[in-house]
């Protein structure tokens, strides 16, 4: 019995130290946090490209365009598409409708800008191809790779169509292929890189998660094993040898001594089982402790309660437990302790085969003690009144 108490104590110390961290679930957040960081990096890359790269080219070639105002307007449309796309991707995974809406706006703006560029000079003054491609990367980054490939192909096709419309020269085709290789290559490389990092972050999180789960399992197993071990120890030193003797035939159930031992162990097992499923107050707990001591001497002790027991203050509890110790010490083979809720207080009674009158401590602290001897049986009642 006493061995069970350290088990609960152990539970209180082991549990917070090893198990509580899992309550925060850092692993679940981890991969999400990395993915967000990659998204932010891509947002900065795309915005930086559009502002510095495309914007710089637009200003540098401002005199070459037929209408700088139109190119500027398209640049703004692209900037708005990038802004909207950034907000959407930072909010979370994009549905295909929104992602493709942004992508199509970028494609349309870039095609319009290319079409409005002077023929023959289009590739040289084109600011929009790169921006449109990057916008596609931004919004299609976490969708299927084929979607991004389709978009980049459509973008390249649109630029090529404009060139064909303008009349394609051999040198123009070479330029197209060069820009295509450089720009689209970079965009594909970034998208693939982010994808690889996502996978790595997922794997790291999964590894951490399984490590965390393993640690939690280990901690739980330890708590269970400590409690089980304590219970096992308690039975090992008492009930198990008795059962072994009975099985081996060295203990004879016909022997009164053996029957007493059986009764004691049965009472002990009952109390072990009963203690777990109720939350007794300190008085019940203290009486259990006294019963443990008596049990070691071979006294079978029952403890029963009736009704909602009031909380008994410390000094009154001491008077009651002092009486309990005296009676249980005098008990020869069995004792019954009951705690009953009575009007305005509690009646703690003891019935035990003490054989003789037990000198009980004087009443005090609001506790009145009465006793009666009938043959070898003692009845005593400690009644605490809260009035």
């Amino acid at each position, binding site marked *: 019995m006493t061995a069970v108490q350290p088990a609960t104590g152990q539970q209180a110390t082991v549990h917070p130290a090893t198990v509580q961290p899992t309550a925060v679930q850092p692993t679940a957040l981890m991969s999400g946090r990395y993915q967000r960081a990659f998204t932010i990096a891509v947002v900065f890359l795309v915005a930086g490209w559009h502002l510095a790269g495309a914007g710089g080219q637009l200003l540098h070639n401002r005199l070459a365009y037929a209408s700088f105002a139109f190119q500027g307007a398209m640049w703004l449309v692209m900037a708005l598409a990038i802004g909207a796309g950034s907000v959407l991707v930072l909010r979370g995974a994009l549905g295909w409708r929104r992602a493709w809406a942004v992508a199509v706006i970028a494609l349309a703006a870039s095609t319009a800008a290319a079409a409005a560029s002077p023929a023959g000079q289009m590739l040289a003054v084109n600011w929009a191809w790169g921006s449109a491609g990057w916008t596609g990367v931004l919004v299609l980054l976490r969708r299927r790779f084929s979607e991004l490939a389709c978009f980049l192909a459509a973008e390249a096709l649109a630029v090529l169509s404009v060139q064909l419309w303008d009349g394609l020269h051999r040198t123009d085709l070479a330029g197209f292929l060069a820009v295509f290789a450089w720009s689209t290559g970079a965009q594909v490389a970034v998208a693939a890189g982010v994808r690889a990092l996502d996978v790595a972050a997922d794997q790291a999180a999964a590894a951490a998660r399984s490590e965390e789960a393993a640690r939690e399992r280990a901690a739980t197993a330890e708590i269970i094993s400590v409690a089980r071990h304590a219970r096992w120890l308690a039975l090992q030193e008492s009930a198990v040898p008795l059962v072994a003797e009975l099985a081996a035939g060295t203990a004879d159930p016909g022997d009164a001594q053996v029957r007493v031992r059986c009764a004691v162990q049965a009472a002990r097992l*009952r109390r072990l089982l009963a203690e777990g499923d109720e939350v007794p107050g300190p008085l019940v707990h203290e009486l259990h402790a006294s019963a443990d001591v008596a049990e070691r001497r071979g006294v079978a002790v029952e403890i029963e309660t*009736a*009704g909602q027991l009031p909380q008994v203050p410390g000094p009154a509890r001491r008077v009651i437990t002092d009486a309990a110790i005296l009676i249980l010490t005098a008990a020869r083979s069995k004792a019954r302790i009951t705690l*009953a809720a*009575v009007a305005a207080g509690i009646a703690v009674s003891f*019935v035990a085969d003490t054989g003789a009158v037990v000198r009980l401590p004087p009443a005090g602290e609001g506790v009145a003690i009465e006793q009666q001897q*009938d043959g070898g*049986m003692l*009845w005593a*009642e400690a009644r605490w009144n809260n009035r």
Partner: protein
Amino acid sequence: MEQQVTVAIIEDHPVVTEGVASWIRSDPGQRVRLVQTARDLTGLRGTARLSDVVILDLELSGELVTAQIPELVAAGYRVVAFSGHSDPAIVMETLDSGAHAYVSKEEGRDHLVEAVLAAAADRPYVTRSQARAMLADQRPARPTLSEQERQALLLWFQGMSKASVGRRMSVSENTVRQYISRARAKYAATGRTAPSKDALLARAIEDGVIKPGEIVPYQSFARAVAEGPSLGAPGQ
């Protein structure tokens, strides 16, 4: 010699059935005869009553069977509940359903055969675990027990013999039995109606345990107030 009381054991653990059968066999007067054992209640349904009393384990195959007690009682069986559950709420539910007595598995050896005999005679039988449940009862519809009845139940629950209770209360052992039986009879007069409860009450009146006027179920208090000549508004 009186006629033997016949009993059936409904219990899902064969070893417990065997133990109960051995208690019945070892009764010196051979007052009880075991006529049937079963692991569930299906054998008792739809057939003529096979025994006077049923010893019923309240948990069969992991399920509480308190709800089946009224059916058994209606079929004419007297039910003695025999259970490892000592939760006062379950004990009260069992008695309210019409069971005659409640015997916990720890009390079986000393009380089961006596409880069966009492049930067959429609006489009250109160075990310590039953006294505990009656003392702990806080339901609004509980019967009003007198101070002596409460005190007798408390001392009995505490573990005293009835003779010791009598000495403690300065009354005869017989009077102690009377107090405890009267408390039990009051319970038979409250809650759900059941033929077994009516029989117990009728027998208690016949035996002089309780007078018809002493049966004061909870509801009649309100009635008394309403009918009282000088008491106008209820609650005054």
